[in-house]
């Protein structure tokens, strides 16, 4: 006997984790809990990437989403005061409409997507680091540069947006 049954089991667990986490993020009232569960979702997603044989992407996933984005969002949560009563958290007016729309879009896509890609499983390649790096720095060099510029712009923009210029600092600058 072999370990073939492992992969589907792991996949099942991971997908349950992903979807449950996602739903929890949407439904939970406590935003810190939502943030933490989002991190959990990301971790499960990383697990899926590993299942798909994209270890590098998985590592980036954890590094960026869990390590950076979740923490940033926790910062946001902690710096902003929010009302905890469930009624206040949801749009009252547009919720049913939204539910209808989303369902209308989601159901066919999920069904079609699921049914149309049955059969041949994705080949689980080995570590994809060299291939990834090669194509990033050859075919996609220009988008890569653009992305770096975008990051820089975002960094500067975030700093400019969130800096509060305290008066005596400004006065100092004026005096200098």
């Amino acid at each position, binding site marked *: 006997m072999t370990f073939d049954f492992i992969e*589907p089991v792991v996949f099942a667990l991971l997908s349950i984790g992903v979807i449950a986490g996602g739903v929890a993020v949407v439904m939970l009232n406590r935003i810190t809990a939502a943030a933490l569960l989002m991190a959990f979702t990301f971790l499960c997603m990383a697990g899926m990437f590993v299942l798909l044989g994209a270890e590098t992407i998985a590592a980036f996933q954890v590094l960026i989403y869990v390590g950076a984005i979740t923490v940033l969002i926790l910062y946001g949560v902690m*710096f902003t005061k929010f009302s905890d009563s469930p009624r206040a958290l949801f749009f009252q007016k547009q919720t049913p409409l939204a539910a209808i729309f989303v369902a209308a879009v989601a159901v066919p896509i999920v069904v079609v997507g699921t049914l149309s890609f049955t059969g041949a499983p*994705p080949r689980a390649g080995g570590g994809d680091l060299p291939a990834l790096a090669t194509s990033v720095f050859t075919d996609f060099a220009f988008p890569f540069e653009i992305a770096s510029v975008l990051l820089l712009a975002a960094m500067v923009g975030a700093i400019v947006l969130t800096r509060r210029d305290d008066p005596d600092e400004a006065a100092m600058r004026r005096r200098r």
Partner: protein
Amino acid sequence: MTVPLGAYIAVSAVLFFTGCAGVLVRRNAVVILMCVELMLNAANLALVAFSRKYGSIDERGSVFVVFVFVIAAAEVAVGLGIILSAYRNRPVVDVDEIHQMKG
């Protein structure tokens, strides 16, 4: 026996629309940001799965995932910046109370 591609796609789609619903129904800006992240992540899963199945050896789908990471990071940074500066002007994070731009 291994997992078919369709399963991955199904998971990705479900997560995507969960996040979509979250963006639509939640009021707290931070939560909306989180839901957007979920949607991006779902897209990543689809990209990686497809690149695994169809992509040639050079991992183009994964390359796009890397770019999505970049976008996500930038988006969170700027989004939180906007939320915080808005919060500083008026201490609310509910997006439907920030409607000064109403026509």
